[in-house]
């Protein structure tokens, strides 16, 4: 076998910031004082925080050392299922860093923010073209805030009909956030079981959908990586009872240019720009969670809206009495929106469609190559991700966690593990389209090598990882005796 991707390297120990501070050091070029000290009411004066004093070099070395303990998409393949860890193009960073954007105050008069408003307006149109849903808001700051926005639209819609409803159907293959988002709007979630094929059964929905149910939240493709084949029929059932269909579009990367979400019966959908549209994940944010809706639901979208009348300038508009209100202090995570815009303009329709097709091809290629080695509970054509389990390895007392930890030593970020819950010991692999065949082959080889190790040398797995900065960490200690600050 060829040498694995992971190897040893020189990384450094690094204390906590305050363990290396020395009073009197300076890391900041203090602006020139050109005004006198003014009187200050002593009753409000404080002591200031006891931050450490560090030199610029101290700070630069500190964070450089920390960064070297991290694995990112730029380090290697990051097949974290449901997270779409695709490559983050560098030109996006250049565009978001343009001083005309970074130096722009959000409350500038419209006439001084035409470029930013035009970008927001056009991005909304582009996302409408991708999803087939004509009205879009880009305000929600993350997927979960997009979900909340969607549930607020559900709530406002039923209220406007004079018939508030109390329940929402949520399949067991949906994202974990869905019930929490629904609960924020007072909806009780009703769990829907998927069938033996891993998808929703219309008969099941039919039995659960009633006139006190606001609608359904579907993740499509679902978290098993399967397309909800009955979505059109399910949407009809829900609509016939006066309900709405919400689609969690976290997995949109599978279907751009191939599936029209509006034609599948979806009324409300959120996108994760940090997944499908290549904006970086930043170690856990900032992201962006635009929401796309049908024309009938447009009036409920958050304010302000960006509008443009013919021959007039772009402007912000607040006069939308049915709107669910404001979700963000300003217009959302604008810097992230710039990156997504930059991506769409770089790709165009043809490349976006091809990106989805290749994402699906990559996932199916991995599935075909590993299905004889790892248990595949739903052996069907998948979309952008595939879900295995640790069943075959369990007999050697090896678990998904061990496989994940060992994979690090081969130079790969582990897949999503123990999710979705419908698969015991799930290993959820989403390669994305930006991984080339060589890297997929290396990943497949590593997974097969790990399977051999479960029989031949299981300690390599149970003791993994040994190469990174730290070994397995004691999460029980962390939770029993929480130490959350220094």
């Amino acid at each position: 076998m060829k040498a694995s991707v992971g190897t040893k390297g020189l990384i450094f120990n690094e204390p906590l910031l305050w363990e290396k501070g020395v009073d009197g050091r300076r890391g900041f070029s203090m602006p020139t004082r050109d005004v006198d000290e003014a009187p200050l009411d002593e009753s409000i004066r404080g002591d200031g925080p006891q931050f450490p004093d560090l030199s610029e070099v101290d700070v630069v070395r500190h964070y450089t050392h920390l960064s070297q303990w991290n694995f990112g998409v730029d380090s290697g393949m990051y097949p974290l299922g449901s997270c779409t860890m695709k490559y983050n193009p560098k030109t996006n960073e250049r565009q978001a860093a343009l001083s005309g954007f970074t130096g722009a105050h959000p409350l500038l008069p419209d006439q001084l923010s035409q470029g930013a408003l035009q970008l927001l307006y056009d991005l909304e149109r582009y996302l409408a073209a991708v999803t087939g849903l004509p009205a879009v808001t880009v305000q929600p700051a993350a997927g979960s805030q997009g979900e909340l926005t969607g549930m607020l639209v559900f709530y406002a819609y039923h209220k406007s009909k004079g018939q508030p409803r109390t329940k929402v159907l949520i399949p067991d293959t949906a994202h974990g956030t869905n019930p929490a988002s629904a609960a924020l709007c007072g909806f009780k979630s009703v769990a829907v079981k998927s069938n033996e094929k891993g998808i929703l059964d219309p008969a099941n929905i039919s039995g659960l959908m009633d006139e006190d149910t606001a609608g359904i939240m579907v993740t499509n493709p679902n978290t098993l990586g399967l397309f909800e084949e009955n979505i059109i029929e399910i949407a009809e059932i829900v609509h016939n009872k006066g309900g709405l269909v919400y689609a969690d579009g976290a997995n949109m990367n599978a279907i751009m240019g191939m599936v029209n979400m509006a034609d599948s019966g979806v009324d409300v959908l959120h996108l994760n720009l940090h997944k499908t549209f290549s904006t970086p994940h930043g170690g856990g944010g900032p992201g962006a969670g635009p929401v796309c809706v049908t024309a009938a639901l447009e009036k409920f979208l958050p304010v302000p809206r960006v509008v443009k009348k013919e021959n007039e300038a772009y402007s912000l508009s607040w006069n939308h009495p049915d709107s669910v209100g404001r979700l963000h202090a300003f217009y959302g995570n604008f810097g992230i929106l710039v990156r997504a815009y930059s991506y769409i303009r770089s790709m165009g329709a043809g490349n976006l469609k091809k990106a989805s097709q290749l994402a699906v091809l990559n996932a199916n290629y991995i599935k075909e190559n590993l299905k004889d080695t790892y248990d595949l509970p739903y052996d069907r054509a998948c979309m952008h991700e595939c879900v295995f389990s640790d069943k075959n390895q369990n007999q050697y007392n090896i678990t998904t966690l061990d496989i994940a930890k060992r994979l690090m030593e081969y130079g790969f970020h582990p897949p999503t593990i123990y999710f979705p819950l419908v698969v015991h010991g799930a290993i959820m692999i989403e390669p994305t389209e930006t991984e080339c065949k060589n890297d997929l082959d290396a990943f497949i080889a590593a997974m097969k090598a790990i399977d051999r190790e479960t029989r031949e040398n299981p300690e390599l797995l149970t003791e993994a990882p040994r190469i990174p900065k730290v070994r397995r960490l004691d999460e029980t200690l962390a939770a029993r005796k929480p130490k959350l600050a220094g």
Partner: protein
Amino acid sequence: MKEISELTFPDDLRYTKDHEWAKQDGDTIKIGISAYAQDQLGDIVFVELPAVGDTFDKGGEFGTVESVKAVSELYMPMGGEIAAINEALEDTPESVNNAPYTDGWMIEIKPGDPDEYNALMDKAAYLDMLKGQES
């Protein structure tokens, strides 16, 4: 996780289908979770308990027990008023793992209807139920 035969279930306790135990002690009833329950949950990191004086019906949720990645509700084996809570669990939740029937007790109640105690499962019935779940 352990086999049922490796776990201890004292004879003088009563048990529920949700794996709480109850122990009569004069006028009050002490309540905790069984060795089976703590073993299923794994390392327990936090126990959320009610306030003394709160009252609950039989089957009411009186608290939660947390492991690193799971939360389970705790249900009243019988209705009553909380007379005491095990405050030591705040600092040593591991007692629920190490000594589920002694140091790991959770609440003590003044029962509303003392007869409810006799309706609970004895050890033999509880073991039968567990064995039924296993197969």
